[in-house]
């Protein structure tokens, strides 16, 4: 590790900490329906939305109605994105003529399975991309379908988290708020203004925002090069803020037009975790005990820093095999040092490792370096972050409700140890809560493990419809444990709605598109529905007064307990799988064995 690298991470964390309270307080006001400084400007827009959509602002929903609204909204979103993608050849703002007769030669066709995968991906806030944006999608699709979903899926996630928080805050209530109102408020007062400011900032730093076609340029060496442009800034800003992560370009935030300068890199990094971090304060504010929010923040911050300070040294120490070959890998004034494969020289090791950790702590999934090229331990961190259900700040909303589910499990086990029926925030944790929290945790584990298992052993016919390359493992770029990590990472990313790719697998085939799409659906709704059921059950309960016999949920002990529960459950579930992936690869690397892009051993 270098001094500069450590400072970068520390300053980043301090700025995040400073943003938490003001942002959280503002969001609490918005969702409590209180007036904020933005109301003068945006209240008419909010009201207009209600009038146009026929939403009654004061109508409350039971959890079942709330869940039905989330499902209905998601279904319509999915259909909308699917149809627009399939029709992109007939729609405007398509200067490159994708899905038409004069598409560029390297264009990816918009097949039904790819359209399905992408529609599911953006509707579930995953933003897994089986396509390369600049060779597949028209500006119209990018803006009207994908960018809109970046707002909608993020606002839906925040709404679900707020509904759960209301479950804790309310007493003997049968309703948990109104999804449509929460969705509108989250979009109008939080996402829209932030994204707008951010987009303008990005434009100012050199991110393109244009409808013009790709530019042809002649390089100094003579050959011509096509430079992809488009309405990038408007998509980039919400992609980061809404923990979406679906890049305009294939290389995501490693692309100089998505992330041109060190300053944009720092601000984009902040925007990954800002809202999720703020929501911990919103939670504390809404349950009328800000210490509770800070306890969640502390648990998240602890795991975040621990992850960064495992990933960063692993990357900075680089590959021992290169060292044996006499390659300089120490940091010098002219180079960042460490494992620079797959990293942008302009960002260096520290900010890449920080980004890899932040993007997988959150369900963001954007990248500014390629995780596939990380050292085994460096790559283990993003993978494990994802597998612990992304509760380290997490996705906007989803991080908070995920962490609260873990808190429920933790409080249940530990609460018994103080000799009372476990309580969290005055709500008794009983059968229904434990059941639903377990269902949510099991469903995502099921999706990750079972789909990875299918992928690594299922034999498919070569040149068939499902996977033209034959068996799914034929799509792996690497053999051995590294290839296994690639598959495990893909299904972890999809199931947990992260969307980042370890990369290294060719995934745009019907087999992968459909299976990953299914994983995303299971991961999103297998978590949201139990969460809302818990919200409904909690809201209906009485609040038990706190006494000295109550397990305190705001101290260091609780933070430690929460961290323990998250890590132990994650580790116990995935240790066997991880030991056959990154863990064994780490030991093998120490012994000088690598898994390069070799042809996979053939067997029948």
């Amino acid at each position, binding site marked *: 590790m270098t001094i500069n690298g450590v400072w970068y991470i520390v300053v980043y964390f301090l700025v995040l900490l400073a943003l938490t309270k003001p942002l959280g307080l503002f969001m609490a006001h918005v969702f409590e329906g209180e007036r904020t400084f933005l109301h003068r400007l945006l209240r008419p827009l909010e009201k207009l939305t209600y009038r146009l959509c026929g939403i009654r602002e004061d109508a409350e929903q039971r959890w079942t109605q709330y869940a039905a609204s989330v499902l209905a909204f998601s279904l319509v979103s999915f259909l909308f994105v699917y149809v627009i993608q399939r029709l992109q050849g007939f729609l405007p703002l398509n200067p490159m003529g994708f899905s038409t007769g004069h598409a560029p030669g390297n264009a990816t066709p918009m097949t039904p399975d790819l359209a399905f995968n992408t529609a599911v991906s953006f509707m579930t806030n995953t933003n897994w991309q089986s396509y390369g944006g600049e060779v597949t999608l028209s500006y119209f699709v990018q803006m009207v379908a994908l960018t809109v979903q970046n707002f909608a899926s993020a606002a839906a996630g925040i709404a679900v988290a707020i509904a759960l928080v209301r479950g804790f805050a309310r007493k003997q209530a049968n309703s948990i708020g109104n999804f449509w109102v929460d969705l509108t408020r989250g979009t109008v007062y939080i996402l829209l203004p932030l994204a707008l400011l951010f987009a303008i900032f990005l434009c100012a730093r050199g991110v393109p925002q244009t409808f013009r076609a790709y530019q042809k340029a002649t390089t100094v060496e003579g050959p011509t090069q096509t430079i992809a442009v488009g309405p990038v800034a408007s998509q980039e800003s919400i992609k980061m803020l809404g923990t979406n992560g679906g890049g305009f370009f294939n290389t995501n935030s490693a692309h100089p037009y998505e992330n041109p300068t060190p300053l944009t890199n720092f601000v984009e990094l902040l925007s990954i975790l800002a809202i999720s971090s703020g929501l911990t304060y919103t939670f504390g504010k809404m349950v009328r005990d800000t210490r509770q929010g800070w306890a969640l923040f502390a648990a998240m911050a602890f795991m975040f820093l621990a992850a960064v300070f495992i990933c960063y040294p692993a990357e900075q120490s680089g590959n021992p095999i290169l060292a044996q070959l006499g390659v300089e890998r120490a940091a010098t004034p002219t180079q960042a040092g460490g494992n620079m494969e797959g990293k942008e020289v302009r960002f260096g090791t520290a900010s890449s490792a920080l980004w890899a950790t932040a993007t997988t702590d959150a369900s963001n999934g954007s990248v500014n370096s390629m995780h596939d090229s990380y050292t085994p331990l460096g790559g283990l961190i993003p993978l494990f972050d994802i597998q612990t259900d992304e509760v380290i700040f997490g996705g906007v909303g989803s991080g908070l409700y995920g962490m609260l589910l873990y808190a429920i499990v933790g409080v249940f086990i530990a609460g018994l140890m103080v000799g009372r029926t476990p309580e969290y925030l005055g709500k008794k944790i009983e*059968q229904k809560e434990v*059941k639903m929290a377990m269902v949510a945790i099991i469903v995502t584990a099921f999706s990750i493990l079972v789909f990875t298992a299918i992928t690594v052993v299922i034999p498919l016919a070569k040149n068939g419809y499902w996977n033209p390359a034959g068996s799914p493992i034929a799509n792996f770029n690497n053999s051995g444990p590294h290839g296994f990590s690639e598959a495990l990472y893909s299904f972890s990313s999809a199931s947990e709605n992260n969307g980042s790719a370890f990369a290294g697998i060719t995934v745009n085939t019907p087999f992968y598109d459909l299976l990953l799409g299914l994983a995303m659906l299971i991961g999103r709704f297998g978590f949201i529905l139990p969460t809302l059921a818990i919200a409904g059950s909690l809201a209906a309960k009485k609040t038990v007064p706190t006494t000295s016999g109550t397990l305190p949920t705001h101290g260091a002990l609780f933070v430690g307990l929460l961290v323990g529960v998250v890590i132990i459950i994650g580790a116990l579930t995935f240790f066997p799988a991880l030991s056959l992936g990154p863990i064994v690869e780490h030991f093998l690397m120490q*012994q000088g*064995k690598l898994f390069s892009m070799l042809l996979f051993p053939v067997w029948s």
Partner: protein
Amino acid sequence: MSPSLHYSSLVAGLSPKPAIASKEKPMDYIISGITALFLFGYLVYALLRPERF
């Protein structure tokens, strides 16, 4: 073939003995798989309807 064999016996006491693993008996795994599927259904029922237990 792999130098790793030699290396690992240095770092830990475990020495590979083949008897722990079965000669691939596909039938065993199919029967076990069906049993696991049954247990999966049973446990899901135990999770969702615990009052029946």
